[in-house]
């Protein structure tokens, strides 16, 4: 039987670095195919290739046995391949009917006719959504339904769902799975990406596991269990050359931070944990597990719920910061995961960026900038963290990713923090700088500071941390002491 959609030796490179490499993939007619893998495994890239969002660097894509290449999503949609993104692409200020027929309007467009056609389509799919309702007033599951209906309206034979259940309630999930089965019965082929392995095992016919941009295994769902999927997802060689050797465990010092029953909307749900001085506390979790949001609340970047939002105790004092500067004042430094947006002023020099960190600490006390002090501090931290630049006056935008990250770290260290939170400290950092940044982090813990490292990359967490907290669905669900824990155990805790 010819697959509806297939990839052969598919490779996609970004700036010379392969996001997927020599991947073979087949999707049969009327099949639900689950795609599993860690963050960065290449799942999204593979689906973006199929949906025409990006093009392959090498290799072929086949639709009904014929080689195809989509240059944009419209081409893919016309060929019957539709993608439903996690964030829906509906226009919130338009009605359901208008959204369904967006781009397919007739020359003379009657709203009544649109609603009648939309009603017929939604009824045929057994979707209980009013076509005259405004999209902004729909729930997450109903939005998904409209997206699916739109895909069906475009005669999609292949529908790709990227994390469709992440925003659904358990009841909505059950309904959504019924919808998928309904589509399958109509002969539609489905690719389903989910971090919840339980869902993949429940709904899919076949499962493909990807790791580090490579295809690892494809098999019938019946031959998988959770353990086999987890092992295939994380079974990489530990890159000890890149991440160095695990150092001996540091004993915990005083409890610097105690978070108790913290809540923030739907992202942080009644989470409790502590952070101790003189230790590196690693926080692992899949994207969307609420790790970053939790620590942003601690650092005053986000605010916890006011009503029954729990309690944050920093150095035995109950705190709720209104702005990050208050947290900096108290001794908390948060090093952002998105340095280009939140980390530095790209057109300013290294020294000026580092000095800006000090000015935050001295706000209200220092009203004039001292250029001599700026130069002195800039040069001191540049040397201390080994920031490599063409000249001392180089702008941060001109530096490599690793050196930019060192500037962001210096900007926080100059504030003399007692708790320092690194969010994805080596994301987008060149290989050589990874080890240096890790050395800086270890050095801070050895000095007695409380250090938190948030990372999606397990080897990094394993190599750096003295204790590991696992985040799932907005709360810390497990704590491991990093002397006899395996990657599989951590991954298992992050998923189940």
């Amino acid at each position, binding site marked *: 039987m010819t697959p509806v959609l297939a990839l052969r030796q598919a490779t996609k490179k970004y700036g010379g670095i392969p996001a997927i490499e020599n991947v073979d993939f087949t999707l049969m007619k009327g099949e639900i195919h689950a795609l599993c893998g860690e963050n960065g495994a290449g799942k999204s890239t593979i689906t973006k290739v199929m949906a025409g969002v990006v093009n392959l660097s090498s290799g072929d894509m086949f639709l009904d046995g014929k080689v195809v290449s989509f240059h944009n999503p419209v081409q893919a949609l016309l060929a019957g391949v539709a993608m439903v993104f996690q964030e829906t692409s509906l226009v919130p200020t338009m009605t359901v009917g208008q959204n369904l027929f967006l781009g397919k309007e007739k020359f003379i467009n009657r709203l009544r006719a649109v609603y009648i056609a939309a009603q017929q389509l939604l009824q045929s799919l057994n979707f209980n959504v009013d076509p005259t309702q405004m999209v902004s007033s729909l729930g997450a599951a109903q939005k998904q339904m409209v997206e699916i209906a739109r895909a069906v309206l475009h005669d999609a034979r292949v529908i790709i769902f990227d994390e469709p259940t992440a925003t659904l309630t358990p009841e909505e999930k059950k309904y959504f799975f019924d919808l998928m089965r309904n589509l399958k019965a109509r002969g539609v082929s489905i690719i389903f990406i989910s971090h919840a392995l339980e869902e993949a095992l429940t709904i899919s016919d076949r499962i493909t596991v990807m790791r580090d941009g490579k295809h690892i295994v494809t098999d019938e769902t019946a031959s998988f269990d959770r353990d086999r999927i987890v092992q295939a997802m994380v079974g990489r060689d530990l890159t000890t050359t890149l991440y160095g050797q695990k150092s001996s465990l540091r004993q*915990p010092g005083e409890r610097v931070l105690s978070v108790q029953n913290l809540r923030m909307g739907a992202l942080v749900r009644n989470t409790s*944990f502590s952070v101790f001085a003189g230790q590196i506390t690693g926080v692992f979790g899949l994207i969307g597990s609420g790790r970053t949001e939790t620590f942003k609340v601690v650092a005053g970047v986000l605010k916890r719920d*006011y009503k029954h939002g729990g309690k944050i105790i920093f150095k*035995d004092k109950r705190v709720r910061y209104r702005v990050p500067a208050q947290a900096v004042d108290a001794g908390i430094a948060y090093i952002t995961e998105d340095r280009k947006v939140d980390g530095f002023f790209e057109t300013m020099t290294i020294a000026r960026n580092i000095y800006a960190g000090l000015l935050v600490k001295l706000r209200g006390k220092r009203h004039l900038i001292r250029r001599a002090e700026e130069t002195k501090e800039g040069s001191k931290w540049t040397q201390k963290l080994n920031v490599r630049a063409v000249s001392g006056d180089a702008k941060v935008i001109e530096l490599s990713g690793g050196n930019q990250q060192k500037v962001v770290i210096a900007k926080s260290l100059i504030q003399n923090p007692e708790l320092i939170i690194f969010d994805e400290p080596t994301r987008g950092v060149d290989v050589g700088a990874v080890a240096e940044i890790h050395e800086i982090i270890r050095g801070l813990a050895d000095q007695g500071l409380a250090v938190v490292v948030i990372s999606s990359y397990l080897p990094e967490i394993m190599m750096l941390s003295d204790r590991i907290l696992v985040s799932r669905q907005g709360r810390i669900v497990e*704590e491991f002491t990093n002397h006899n824990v395996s990657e599989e155990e951590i991954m298992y805790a992050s998923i189940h």
Partner: protein
Amino acid sequence: MFNIFKRAGNRFFGVGEADTSVPVFDGALKPNNLLDTAELFLEQPGLEDMVVDSQGRLVVASGQEIFQVESTGITQQIAVLPNPIQAIATYDKGLVVATSEGLTFLGGEFDGKQLSTFDGQPFQCITALCEGSDGRLLIAQGSLNSEYENWAKDLLNLGKSGRLLSFDPKSGLTQVRAQGLAYCYGVCVDATRTIVSESWAHRISILKDQKIESGLSHIPGYPSRLSKASDGGFWLTVFAPRSQLLEFVLREDAFRSEMMQTVEPKYWISPALSSGNDFLEPLQQGGVRQMGVLKPWAPARSYGLVLRLSPGLVPLYSLHSRVGGLHHGIVSALEFEGALLVLSKGSGRILRAPLAELKP
């Protein structure tokens, strides 16, 4: 006036004094099963306190009796008192014992001496005794308003009448070292400091020159007695866990008052030394099935916990008997012949764990 609005606001938003959040067992307090896997050393109903006497023998107080216990677990009765014993300590080559009637000295220079009142008040609710560095006897008194066995009543009344006294048997002089303590349950000294535990405040404090400094706060349970560790630092026992349910009850004055008036004390929503023994106990039957596994849902009322503290009062590691475990209500722990002995009042057992196996 503004306090009324502030209190109303706090109650509405669940913040300030109306906040029911509790700290979590993590870091050095990460749960394990060390208490449930420890060797059973002695089993006897009514166990209350234990001490190593001046000759290095283990002495245990149980009910009205005092026993000497051999390392093999064989017991030999030393004394019987007219009232149940609440605390025991060594003092001047003898023993000093606290009962509901006050203090009694057994052996040593002050054999037979008794102390039954202070400041015209009967000596009630003595929780711990310890010989101070200045040779005086330190007396921890949990509450002035509740008897020793009615500790739950003191908690639900938000008691803060505990105090630490020092008594010089030679001169007969008794002094108040600290007062207004939220149930002073433990006292221990080292060369320079006197350390006390305050159960209802979930902390241990350091007494220095009549001033109280914070030692270790935000303990996720109700601390009880303290003892010295041989290589520096202390052992702290915790007799029950904190829970959001109980914190909520402690903030609901009307509910608490009605519960105390209309419900039998053993069925109060309060911490317990053991639980799960009676289906009438509050919320012990709750459960929720998650991913096919039945998990307890009901907040735990009892737990077993011993903390090893550094000389700086930082927790280093801990021994636990978890919610489903047997050895809850830990009120005393001490080192004896290379092992840690742990007294579980909830199960009426003394457990033995070799020290060499405890260090992480």
